[in-house]
């Protein structure tokens, strides 16, 4: 690995961070686990993984991570959130009250399809990609409303499931659970390697 490889921090408080680290390593990036604020100082891009959003939110609050995450993302750090990561990036959730970063102008409905028996996979067309991606939705959230700055890259049943707002991308589904690395590549493409 050369020193110019992009360094991607994956929030590792809970969830499938190992799959994201494997995905970015396959693409030649240097992945690292992020648990406490100073772990953020040495990364060029950020991934917030799938997991249980209430657990991740609680631990992030307890260990003083919310403000540093918000600051780095606001300062333009390329960021990808998947499933729980999308929820955590959002500005509000439709039910309940949980800690959120609020970097993505979107209101998110948790467990929008129902319980695990309603989890599914499907071939999904994505704006800018020639072939569909295999999208795995697990107790997945859906976006209820988006702000004007939010670009919708993919929808399912008329609801956004992959969005981008400047440096922030978020998916309802789990690109890290498949071998298709195109969405991770989109994140790496947005890193300016110095």
């Amino acid at each position, binding site marked *: 690995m050369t020193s110019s490889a992009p360094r991607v921090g994956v929030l*590792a*408080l*809970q*969830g*499938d*961070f*190992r*799959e994201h680290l494997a995905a970015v390593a396959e693409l030649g990036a240097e992945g690292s686990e992020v*648990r406490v604020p100073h772990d953020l100082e040495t990364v060029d891009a950020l991934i917030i993984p*799938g*997991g*249980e959003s*209430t*657990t991740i939110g*609680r*631990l992030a609050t*307890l260990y003083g991570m919310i403000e540093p995450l918000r600051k780095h993302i606001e300062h333009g750090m390329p960021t990808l959130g998947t*499933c*729980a990561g999308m929820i955590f990036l959002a500005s509000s959730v439709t*039910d*309940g009250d949980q800690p959120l970063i609020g970097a993505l102008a979107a209101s998110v409905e*948790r*467990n929008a399809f*129902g*319980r*695990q*028996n*309603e*989890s*599914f*996979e*499907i*071939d999904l067309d994505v704006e800018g990609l020639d072939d*569909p991606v*295999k999208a*795995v939705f*697990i*107790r997945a959230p859906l976006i209820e409303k988006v702000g004007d700055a939010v670009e919708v890259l993919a929808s399912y049943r008329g609801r956004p499931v992959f969005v981008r707002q400047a440096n922030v991308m978020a998916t309802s589904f*789990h690109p890290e*659970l*498949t071998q298709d690395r195109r969405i991770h590549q989109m994140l790496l493409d947005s890193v300016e390697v110095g």
Partner: protein
Amino acid sequence: MESNSTDAMSPDAASGERNVVEHGTKRVKTGLAEMLKGGVIMDVVTAEQATIAQEAGAVAVMALERVPADIRKHGGVARMADPNKVEEIMEAVSIPVMAKSRIGHFVEAQVLQSLGVDYIDESEVLSPADMQHHIDKWAFTTPFVCGARNLGEALRRIGEGAAMIRTKGEPGTGNVVEAVTHMRQMTADISRVSTMTDDLLMAAARDLGAPIDLLRDIADTGRLPVVNFAAGGIATPADAALMMQLGCDGVFVGSGIFKSGDPAVRARAIVEATTFHRDPQIIAKVSSNLGEPMVGIDIDEIPESQRMQERGW
């Protein structure tokens, strides 16, 4: 099988059809377990306990009639929980809810699937319903977690369709020794198999009683094809961190939380120790002033015939 719109073993979109919604695939089932990694799953017997668990940062709860320590004390036949209790707990929290069926009791599992629980634990904590057969888990849309003491047992369960494995440990004891034994055995088995050349694998499959295809997979990847949690005797933050450092993907805490002096505080501490399992300073901080742990049982005090880990094969 109508809800499994594809065979759970089938490769991706083999039909080439676009926009087919596939429920209950292997990837969808194992995927939920992937999301639980690095987390703590807590046994609860009431909606109120479930709420305490969720607020403490549990990634899921296991809905039960009685925790293992009480099942042990109570004796008699232990069965699936009252469906009404499971539903109350499902209503109370937004995190995934698991529930236990007896080993081999596929009708209890059908009932739990119809209730919509997120995971079914085919569990040795309850009285086995079939001494010869475990449930055919491929026949369900709802994913299953099963206990194992070694690699052979884990691969037999995965061969039957389990989408997640946990150590058996010895439930309801508050004694981590058996979970450690099972995890160390699993790691040793995997490490041995992953150094084997192809010509040795069939003999290993015979000795372990494991399906050869799954064993080949282990030899290739050096790891189980599904998530492996620790369970059975975890009572303290240090126990949870120990199991994580031994290579588990997360922990189940059964009696350890709600049989202790201050469940909410202990639950939070175990969650933090699981995430920061390599940081002894954090484990020291969260282990302080936790109140009384559950009373533990020495494994030698339990006659072999009453050890839950001996149930199933």
